[in-house]
């Protein structure tokens, strides 16, 4: 019998309306799918596509938080609040609630620099580095440096929800999303926390991020980025049962692997899938549905013995990087099968798998 972490809270925020159910509907009808990004312009040979967030979550924040959070931090906070409320964690002792967060990179935004650049123009309008050195940089907001720190968004979630327990922040991209769920489940199993809020946010589609993707070439060719965030609350099965919490499903197995020198992507994915199945005590044929994330293709599943129907939410809402495995786990509960396997890969760099049992 595998150790089961009950999922008692779920929240998503992305380019589709209606949270988890809305995402399921978007996947069922094929969704709008990634569209060409209007700005920045695509490079020759790089048809850059992505899914931008339709609307920012309405949040009321104090000034410092407003300044340091950035868009990804706001998404993270929105889903964290919603999942926390759904799970009814407010009554828990705050030292017993852990926080595991996956975040991508935080880019310098042109808006952050614009005032300093404007204050450092020479007479002919060109950027004067001497003027920048001599004090032009002071036109940047004093809290800008904090907004560039990866963990600040997680810190704000801890402040906002008064979470003071075991915590960690992992980066970057989809593999971090698998790992935070793995670490959250381990923290519960080891008794380091009574409940864990696992949350992740994608990177905003800034010009700098678009430039990185475009210039990365084949290393990121599979990635059609999306904007959004996802959060899950996990707690031990016995705890959820004792307090009568509504359980959507259970995380019963998790594995994450990084690529070895010369290892083919299929072999790497196979190691991750085998790890999660082994922990869950399943055979490949027992997964009644598969949720594909990242670079996992439909064709690659058969070679792993996974022949169940599959859903690929990224095709509808874009790849949400670290948030994608959490989003897929939240969606797994809605797939209509009692056992669902979430499989994730980033080419030959990293792979992960999550085994989810669905509550009746």
């Amino acid at each position, binding site marked *: 019998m595998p150790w089961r972490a009950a999922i008692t809270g779920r929240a998503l925020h992305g380019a589709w309306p209606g949270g988890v159910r809305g995402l399921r509907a978007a996947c069922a009808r094929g969704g709008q799918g990634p569209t060409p990004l209007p700005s920045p312009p695509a490079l020759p040979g790089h048809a850059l596509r992505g899914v931008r967030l339709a609307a920012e979550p309405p949040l009321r924040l104090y000034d410092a938080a407003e300044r340091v959070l950035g868009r990804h931090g706001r998404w993270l906070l929105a889903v964290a609040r919603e999942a926390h409320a759904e799970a009814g964690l407010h009554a828990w002792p705050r030292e017993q609630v852990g926080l595991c967060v996956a975040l991508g990179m935080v880019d310098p935004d042109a808006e952050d620099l614009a005032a300093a650049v404007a204050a450092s123009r020479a007479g002919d309008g060109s950027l004067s580095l001497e003027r920048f050195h001599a004090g032009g940089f002071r036109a*940047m907001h004093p809290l800008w440096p904090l907004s560039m720190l990866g963990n600040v968004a997680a810190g704000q979630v801890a402040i906002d929800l008064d979470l003071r327990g075991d915590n960690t922040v992992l*980066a970057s991209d989809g593999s971090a999303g698998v790992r935070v769920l793995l670490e959250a489940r381990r923290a519960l199993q080891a008794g380091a926390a009574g409940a864990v809020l696992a949350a992740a946010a994608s990177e905003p589609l800034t010009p700098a991020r678009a430039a990185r993707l475009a210039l*990365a070439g084949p290393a990121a060719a599979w990635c059609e980025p999306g904007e959004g965030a996802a959060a899950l609350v996990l707690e031990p099965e016995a705890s959820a049962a004792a307090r009568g919490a509504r359980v959507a499903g259970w995380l019963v197995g998790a594995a994450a692997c990084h690529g070895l020198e010369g290892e083919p992507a299929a072999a790497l994915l196979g190691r991750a899938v085998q790890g999660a199945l082994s922990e869950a005590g399943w055979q490949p044929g027992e997964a009644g549905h598969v949720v594909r994330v990242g670079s996992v293709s439909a064709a690659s599943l058969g070679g792993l013995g996974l022949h169940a129907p599959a859903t690929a939410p990224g095709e509808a809402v874009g790849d949400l990087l670290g948030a994608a495995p959490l989003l897929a786990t939240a969606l797994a509960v809605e797939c209509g099968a009692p056992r669902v396997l979430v499989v994730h890969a980033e080419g030959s760099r990293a792979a992960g798998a999550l085994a989810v049992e669905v509550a009746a």
Partner: protein
Amino acid sequence: MPATRRPDAERVVVTGMGMVTCLGGDVASTWAAAEAGRSGIRELTLFDPRGLACRVGGEVQPAWLPRIPLAPHEQSGGRPYLLARGAAEEAARQAGLASIATRDRIALVLGGHANTPSYDDLVTLARHTDAQGGVSLPGLAGEAAYGAHQFHRRRCDHAPALLARSLDVRGPALPVVSACAAGGQAIGEALKLLREQRAQVVVAGGTECQLNYSAYIGCVLLGALAKRVNEPDKASRPFDRRRSGFVMAEGSAMLVLETLASARARGQRVLGEILGYGDSADGFRITDMHPEGLGGAQAMAAALADAGLAPDDVQYVNAHGTSTPLNDPTETLAIKHALGEHARRVPISSNKSMMGHSFGAAGAIEAVLTLVGMQRGVVLPTINLEVPDPRCDLDYVPNQARAVAHRVALSNSFGFGGQNACLALGAGE
């Protein structure tokens, strides 16, 4: 020492240590300089700091940079990776890591924050940004400096991935990005991996190189750096009334950790033990620590509980001790909360007085120095402690190293954003 010992398969010991810091290119030279109370803080040379109120930092001297020929794919890791590679090689040699056949049972956990967008990056981005904030991608693509490596340079998981490949580590590889707590948290996460038998051996530590213009002006803008600095080696002065901020530094430290059962089976010398780990979130303000140090105190209490130790068992505290007006008295309160009356009897010191603050590497560097101190029966000093702050009223081992036989210590790391980590360290057997 712990009232009840864990079984050997759950006790986590240190069998290798390596470091590259502003005091030296390895553990021995860093320790020797720190024991002598030397400062590694100098006028900055890595970028031109003219016009800034603070122009000092803890740079790794060119002679101490690891002389490791990097493969082409490793070039994208930049200076943080280079330092981590040097520290990891030293630790791996000492631990005989190469002789372990089961490579999939070796894991890696690295704290740090990759490469900050450099001043050149910012200037390049500005050059191709129009008045509306739009960026010309074709223009950027034409910049030799903004090539494909840019994709990887800022990824916090890039250096761990490169390091895992270079060391042939085939188990989990975790990047931890909790600001100044990251180095301590990386060792804490490694402890969990080993206790839960997810790995037999873990290479863990931190690396950080933020001594570039953009990161530096970031800290200037925050008002966090030392001010009115005339003598670089006097700039970092934790617990002193005249402290005015921290001094940025770079460096890396790596440890090879394994279960005691594994170390014995491999015939490895035990250099120390990770007795326990505690972490917490302040949950207070994004810009400030909790004024009573409750988050730090909770992390220390959790580390003691995890180790099965009582406050009176602690014989030394390696403080976070940043030299900022806020941290030092707040950490003093946190230590008092955690250790009670015993806080007045235990020596406490800040390595940052000599080495500055290397953010995500600091917790790992300080853990290594704490372990070496236990081996040698020496507590490192807090230098530049000349006029004590009345709010900092504990024993901070001022200015000179002290001979103290000790076998149990705590090492604190508190991060921007309110994340706290504390390691309970032991001398081993």
